[in-house]
């Protein structure tokens, strides 16, 4: 049975590219357009992996990570941040919030698949 991934990003192009890459590797993908939408979808069904952008309207990625980690069903689920930001400070914040990893855009599709297979495969 295919693993289910939640892709959260306010950029439609990024969501489309993520879906394309992950589906080519055999994953099922549900999209959300901001942190709030992502949280609602995560509450509605269980995901095996969540990939989220950081800078989004309504709720940013790190806030989403904290909200998900507070839920018993997402205490151990892999959550990756995929963002344009790559400073050590931001990565530290992400790690502190409970993120599993940090990927800087633009992502290499083969590298992404490798990372996703490692954390959710």
């Amino acid at each position: 049975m295919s693993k289910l991934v939640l892709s959260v990003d306010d950029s439609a192009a990024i969501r489309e590219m993520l879906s394309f890459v992950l589906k080519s590797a055999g994953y099922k993908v549900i999209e959300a357009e901001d942190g709030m939408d992502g949280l609602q979808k995560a509450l509605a069904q269980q995901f095996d992996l969540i990939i989220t952008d950081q800078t989004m309207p309504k709720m940013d990625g790190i806030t989403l990570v904290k909200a998900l980690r507070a839920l018993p069903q997402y205490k151990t689920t892999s959550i990756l941040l995929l963002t344009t930001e790559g400073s050590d400070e931001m990565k530290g914040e992400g790690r502190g919030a409970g993120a599993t990893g940090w990927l800087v855009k633009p992502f290499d599709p083969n590298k992404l698949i490798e990372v996703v297979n490692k954390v959710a495969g």
Partner: protein
Amino acid sequence: MTTPKSITTSDYVEATSGARDDIPSLVVRTGAALKSQCVAAHEELQQMQHLLSDATRNLLDCFHAAARDLADYERARNSPEQSSSEQAAARVEANLLAASQHLQFSDLVGQLLTTTEERIDALLLVSQNMQSLMLALSAARDNPDEDNGQFDARKQAFFEALQILESRGPSRVRQTSMEAGDAQLF
């Protein structure tokens, strides 16, 4: 600072000579902020140009490679060797995957455009408030006997606009090419 009604505007203007004295320093500070933000906006536009140029080149390369591989696939499909058509199909898929990296330029450029737009909005706000301030200063000098609470209000509005401009930092987007970013697992 409020102007007591018993004091005329000329007294007020004289008493707040600090307000006029600090106009030169205000001009210097404003000039520095304007220059800094215009340079930043210019750099962001150059950054966008690099990203677009890099993405376009790479996407064209992917497009041409996919077109060649598709032609190979068509030829291989008619050949008795199944493996060569499978290899051609795999190459087409690889080129499409590669293109997905460069198509992300729209997100990076979109973020840069937002930052530059906000920067220009802040520049316009300072420009508008500076005009209003200069008009209020001119009115205070031309009509010293009139109540000039307007000068304080315009000066306050200008300071606030200047603070907004000065607070505009660099864009979060530092990428100047579509080279893939790093990936780190904690």
